Structure formats: C-alpha cells, structure tokens
C-alpha cells in the first residue's frame, strides 16, 4: 500500500484550489479538536481564582500554584498552627502552602504517577515477551487449531472489563493480590498479550523465513536462529508493539478503579479526585493531566506510521 500511496492519483491530481480548501477545513478541525487540550494545559498555569473565572480567562498571569499543589503532599493543619506561621510571603513559599492546607485535601500525585510507570512498564515487558514467543510460534509452526486459538486470543479483548472484574476481585482477595502492583501488572499483561500476539505475528510474517533457514543451515539451532536472526529483524515491530501496550496500561481506568484503592492506584483514577479548597483544584488537575498526557502525545507522534496497525490489531496495514 505504501508504494501505491506515494504515486496515488498521479493522473487524477486534485486541483490547487480544492487542495487549499481541503487543507483549510482540516486545519480548522484540528484547531477546534485541540482546543480542549490547550485549555486544560493553560488551566495548569492559572491560579485557582483565574481557573474558575467567568468569562473564561484566555489571557492570564501564569502561576506555578497548580504544579505546587500537585507535588506537595497536603495534610490538614490546625488554625493555631497556621497562626504560628505568620503572614504569607509569596505565591509558592512554604508559609503560603501551609496556610492553604487548612481545608485542602491530599495530593499524592507523585506516588500514583510512579505506580502508573511501574505497572505500565512491567505489564508491557511481560506482554511483549510472551507475545513475541507466541507470535513466532503462530507465524512459523503448524499449530493445531491455530486460527481458533488466534481468535480466542483476540476475543479475550472483546470482554467488557467489568464482566471479569468480579471474579478477578474475588480471586485477588484470596491470593492477596488486590491493591498490589503485581496484581495489576499480571492483569494488564493478560489484556495486552492479545494485542501483542496479533501485532507481532504481522511483523514476523513479513520477515522472510529464508533468513532463519540460512542460519540453521549454518549450524544454528532453531532457538539460536530465533534470538540471533528473527528478534533483531523484528526490532521495529517489537518497539511499536511495546508502545501500544504501554499506552493501554497507562490509560486504563476500569480495572484500576475497581481493584485498587490506595497502595497500587494509578494516575487515571487519582487525577479526578484532586480536591482543593471548596471544590476541585482545577489548576492542579490541569497540571496533573498535562504531565500525564505528555508521554502519550510524544508516543503518538513517534508511532504515526504504525498507528493504523496498532489500533486494528494489525488487521489493516499501512
């Protein structure tokens, strides 16, 4: 398809005007669709009063308060304690911070963010490792009922998470895995392995068998040939698969909110619970959301070429 797309419409080339109109419409859509993201990004740099002013403030004095509130662990303080601190001295100094702690809730963003990292990396590593072996076997060997097994693997992804959450909750309670990073890693691995097998099988199918056969004629064992010849050839595919698995684990909410309560909670269930004085601390939410979304935006740009394959389980190539 890539060959076709580079030369596409060589005769039926759209006119310059139609190109310009198309470009303007697409750019208009892109700008409108980016507006909500831009707004939440800007909110992260506002002061709490600016964030809830009406009409909404497009021009404002940037403040670090949102990020401060996000990173400091807040505890309830007594009024006497606040009195002893004296008057506030600046926007983000210790005294101001502590004065605001009277009513403020808790912000444990950093540990939640670290949980997200641990769980996303752990489950990605496991899912890709399991996936590459299975994908290789499905691609190269005659496995009885291979098509049925592959469909079964795919079908595990069709289940609504809530449908299996009840027994997993009961099972984890028995095994002591509830609210643990290990439990979440195993769970996300199981969800991601289906994607990993399907995607990696597509990538491995594209590596000519002759490479391994040549290696085996040179005296390599099958395993050797797999590690020395196939893995390096599949490196790009492995990297793309890993990022897709990571994005899923990073974004997941349903299992996280049902199976974790504190210890192993990830960022998505945590961000909506950032409460400040008298309601949501929107600047802190904006700051937390921004930090949480940056890796995904970077990955989207990196993955551009593989996106279609990744979101369709490799069913459509580009």
């Amino acid at each position, binding site marked *: 398809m890539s060959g076709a797309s580079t030369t596409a419409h060589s005769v*039926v080339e759209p006119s310059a005007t*139609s190109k310009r109109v198309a470009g303007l419409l697409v750019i208009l859509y892109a700008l409108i669709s980016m507006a909500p993201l831009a707004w939440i990004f800007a909110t992260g740099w506002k002061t709490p009063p600016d964030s809830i002013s009406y009409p909404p403030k497009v021009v404002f004095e940037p403040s670090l308060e949102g990020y401060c509130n996000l990173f400091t662990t807040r505890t309830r303080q007594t009024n006497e304690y606040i009195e002893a601190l004296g008057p506030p001295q600046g926007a983000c100094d210790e005294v101001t911070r502590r004065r605001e702690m009277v009513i403020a809730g808790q912000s444990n963003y950093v540990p939640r963010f670290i949980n997200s990292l641990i769980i996303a990396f752990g489950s990605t590593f496991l899912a890709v490792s399991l996936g590459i072996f299975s994908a290789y076997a499905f691609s190269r060997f005659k496995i009885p009922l291979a098509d049925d097994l592959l469909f079964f693997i795919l079908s595990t992804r069709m289940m609504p998470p809530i449908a299996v959450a009840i027994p997993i909750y009961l099972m984890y309670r028995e095994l002591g895995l509830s609210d643990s990073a290990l439990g979440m890693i195993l769970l996300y691995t199981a969800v991601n392995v289906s994607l990993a097998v399907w995607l990696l099988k597509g990538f491995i199918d594209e590596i000519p068998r002759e490479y391994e056969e040549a290696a085996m004629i040179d005296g390599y*064992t099958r395993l050797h040939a797999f590690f020395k010849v196939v893995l390096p050839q599949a490196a790009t595919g492995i990297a793309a698969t890993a990022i897709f698995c990571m994005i899923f684990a990073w974004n997941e909410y349903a299992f996280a909110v049902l199976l974790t309560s504190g210890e192993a909670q990830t960022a998505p269930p945590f961000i*909506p619970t950032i409460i400040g004085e008298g309601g949501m601390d929107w600047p802190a939410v904006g700051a937390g959301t921004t930090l949480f979304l940056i890796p995904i935006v970077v990955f989207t740009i990196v993955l551009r070429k593989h996106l279609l394959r990744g979101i369709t389980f490799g069913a459509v190539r580009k």
Partner: protein
Amino acid sequence: MPNIDTIAHRAAAATPQGVARKVRGLSDRSIAWLFVAPTMLLLLAINIFPLIWTVYLSFTNYASNRPNRPVINVGLKWYRDILSSPEIWAAMQATAHFVFWTILFQTIIGFGLAYLVDRKFRGHAFWTTIILIPMMLSPAVVGNFWKFLYQPQIGLFNYVVSFFTGLPPSSFEMLGSVTLAPWAIVIVDTWMWTPYVMLICLAGLRSIPDYILEAAEVDRASRWRQFWSITLPMALPFIMLAVLFRGIENFKMFDMVMLLTGGGPGSTTELASITLKRAAFEAYRTGYSSAFAIILFVVVFGLANVYVKALNKVKQR
C-alpha cells in the same frame, strides 16, 4: 509449513553438527508448544477462569460483601430478573442510543476528514498527526477534563456556545439536564474517536488503485459519479471495520462516561457497564451482576463474530 522441517532435516543431515543439533536443540514441535504455552496459561488464569467463575456465580446468591453466608443455587432466577427488569432495558436502550449516534457522527465526520486529508494538501501529514492525538488519551482523564469544560458557571463550552448563540450561559447545563446529558457524552465520544474512524477510512481511500480512478477520468466520469461509484464502494469495507470496532468498544463503554456523568442525572446516561458496576460494586449483588455480565458478554461476543466475518471479507479483496 512442511518445507521448514524438510530444510531443517536436510541441514541436519548435511552438516557434521547434525547429530549434536538433535541432542542440544529442541524439536520444532516442542518449541512451538513451549512458545505458546505461557500465553495460553496466563489467558486461562486471568480470562477464562474468571469467566467460568462468573458463569458459576450467576447461578448463586453469593454476595461479595458477605463471604461467609452459605451459597445457595438459585438456578436461572437472576437471568429471569434481568430480562424482565425495566432498569436493565433502560440501560440497554441508553447504550443502543449512545452507540448509534456516536457511530453515525464519527463515520460521517471521520470519512469526510479522511476524504479531505487524501487531497494531500501541503502539511497534510503534520495535521493528520495532530488530529489523531485525542484517541490516544486516557478516556477517564478525557472525561474528567471535559467535565471541567462543561461546568455551567465556569466552563469554556458554555461560554463558546453562548457566545455564538446568544443564549445566556446559565440556561443550559450540559451534564445536569436530562435532555442534554446524553448529548454531552455523545459530543465527547465523537471528539475523542472521530480520528480513529478517519485513520481507517484514510487507509481505505489510499488502498484504491490509481488505475481505476484514471480509467474513470479517461471516461470523463464526473467527480460526483467517481465518488459514488468508485471511492465509496471501495472504501466501504474499511468504513465497516471502523464501525464494528467502535460499536464493540462503545457497547462496553465505561471509563469516560463514569467520569463525565457517573450515569446521571437520574439514570439518563446510565449505560450497561455503569449499571453493572453499580450492581456489582455498590449494591454487592454479585450473583445478579454476574448474570448481567454474562448476557453482555454474549452480546459483545456476537458482535465480535460479525466483526471477524467482516474482517475476512476485507482481507479477501
């Protein structure tokens, strides 16, 4: 498939290491099983075993907050209760509406965008990437910040709407009004997932061979005619693929809606997954919710089968 074996055997016979290879190397058959087994075991432990457990629980009166109560077999009671429950039918109806409208909007806008991007204007690759960002984000986080945009007193959405329509911003509460709340979630879902449909449609449009359009051009077919007789039919399998994928995903939608409305106001946006979550984790009706989960799974599995059939159709082209 057999050619690998024969080549390997020939290699083994031809080289002096042939004997050694048989001893130290594993046979292909054992490698195949060794490579597939861990994945299968994990899926059995974390997908199949819980699923079977759910089936079992759906026939009992077990409640996860009362683990010591003796478990009684209640037969098909929960299934009968669910199929005759107006609450469940309301949830299924809300889900069907949600799926229908989101797919309609996403397909029309998504295909339109793909058609425009396919014009290959200057910078189209960059703007396509920008458009794709929303679908990569966490639905829960998206739901949360849209809730902020929808706030009646402070929200950007209300401000923009009242700026263009002249309506007073306090006159509409997107998430608080029974009539507007379902549309509020349709808007967010469309915002988030239109890029997905666009990407698949774009692949469909790019898969149309040049010579067909060139031939049409030579025959002096009008642009309109070319679109209806060539472009649309040839991209159709891809559009269907996108529709089926979005259908399955939106049928089990939970995260975004949970954060945005939590099912409210009243139960106007209470989709099937949210009803299920309430029954299982708030009312602790484990048996009842297990039965509902099984019913949902059967429906989704049916859709998945349709999807695979459509997929095979696409592949056959």
